[in-house]
């Protein structure tokens, strides 16, 4: 859940994210991808939410922080979708790779 007004307070933006919408893995991956903009501190999740604090360099403006939060949620949407696709296609990927190398003899044998 995004706070209605992003407030940059002492270089931090505090977010509360609904775990029923975004899984924790997606929340962390999105933060990693935007590490050049901020450092994310992810708190211990409760049943339904997790608190995430985005920590910026002291010199950044409110506008920069606001844009960063927008990008974070944009990335979060993508990461969540990636996780959904990975969940559905993961076993197929394993099957394809196993099939690809099923006839490969990787052990050198002496005749």
């Amino acid at each position: 859940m995004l706070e209605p007004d992003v407030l940059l307070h002492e270089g931090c933006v505090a977010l509360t994210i609904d775990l029923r919408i975004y899984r924790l893995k997606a929340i962390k991956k999105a933060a990693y991808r935007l590490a050049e903009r901020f450092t994310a501190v992810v708190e211990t999740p409760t049943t339904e939410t997790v608190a995430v604090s985005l920590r910026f360099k002291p010199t950044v403006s409110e506008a920069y922080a606001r844009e960063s939060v927008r990008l974070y949620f944009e990335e979060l949407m993508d990461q969540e979708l990636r996780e959904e696709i990975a969940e559905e296609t993961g076993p197929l990927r394993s099957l394809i790779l196993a099939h690809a190398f099923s006839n490969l003899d990787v052990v050198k044998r002496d005749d």
Partner: protein
Amino acid sequence: MTELNAHFRGRAEFAPTTRYRLLPCRFTRLDGTRYVATNDVGEHVVMTDDQLRAFATRRLAVDSALYRSLKARHFVFDDDSLVAVDLLALKYRTRAAAIANLTGLHIFVVTLRCDHSCHYCQVSRQTEERTQFDMSREHADKALEIAFATPSPQLKIEFQGGEPLLNFDLIKYIVERATALNTGFRKNLQFVIASNLTHLSDEIIAFSKEHEVYYSTSLDGPEAIHNANRPLRGASSHAAAIAGIHRIREALGPRFISALMTTTPASLSRVTEIIDEYVAHGFRSIFLRNLSPYGFAVRTSLVRRYDVDDWIEFYKRGLGHIFELNKRGVRLREELTTIVLQKMFLPSGSHYVDLQSPAGIAIGALVYNYDGMIYASDEGRMLAEMGDKSLCLGSVDTESFESVMTNERLIGLLDDSLLESVPMCTDCAFLPYCGADPVFHQATMHDSVGHKAFSGFCSKQMAVFRHVITLLEDDPAARNILMSWI
């Protein structure tokens, strides 16, 4: 029903299905409104945000052009296309097949001596008289023993320096010894000398002709840029290079000489002149290369004087100029773009060492330094010159091909370089086109994997991939030219 008729299905069987399943894929933003999705074998589809989400949540109309495109490229399958899994497996195996034929390139640093004092030189060049920086015959013999133990049926021996022609006697020795050894091994043996061509002589040309030796030289652009980048005391490096290029063409043939350029701050505003210089001297390709963060380029702070955005702008303008030349009937291609296109459209991709997963270190090339030390890549020995020996794999005096390739440090680096397990890369649509480049990240972040959000390598590659795909999508004339390069 006859037995033959039993093999045919009624028309209703071929009606579009409303059900489909997703196959493994990755997606990344292409621009403000579109995504590019790729699968594990490098096929790609560009979609809008709405299309991507409709595809992923299986709300896509199965009679739509996008669905047909996704199905043809193995992003989805339905009851009518169960062969997709088999085809993807076959294509994946084809792309990975080259890994089994490891280490086709063996680089012999026959001397560190050089007559040039290039600002961006990646090694610690030595003055011409310091012969203690020459490779010995004993080390050359032991290096050849390792080189011929590779399982690769292709064996390319490349001579580097310094300026390798300053130790031509050893080049002659290695070429003759390798040729003799190859009568037993019967590998596809090729020799390349990476030279500034200043020391070409009739004897060297005759020997090169007899043994079909290829040459790779540096041509940074017009005389002013080239000579500013590559000072040569008392003479013009540009004039020597051009004379050498034409001499090799006449004596050996055009395919025996190729040229490479390096982008310095002085090059950034002059890409069209640089490209025109290549055309003027009869080259059909140019590799718009950025500076690497090694050697003198670091010590002289040259690498910090332009950033990724500057190089990308240089590259885009250069590519635009090359398209204009092609439209006028001048045949010229850009090499980095060609490598990307090969990875996108050819079944076996590209074997370009710097864009491999696992990384091309040792698998793609081994380097034997003048002192007999073995490195996992050319950049690895440059890193060692900077005091970081993490890519040193021992000495030819004590190692064999097997011990080099099973070196624990090397295996650890290769393991870390599989993009499928690298944070960010694992989700990136450009993964099938990209590589790990552990040496770049070791040099810039002191970590072979690095954090890709801060990686200049990642920024550069992503920008190139986005630009090429955008051209393929939005510019039919550019697409025609690009497709003619592969």
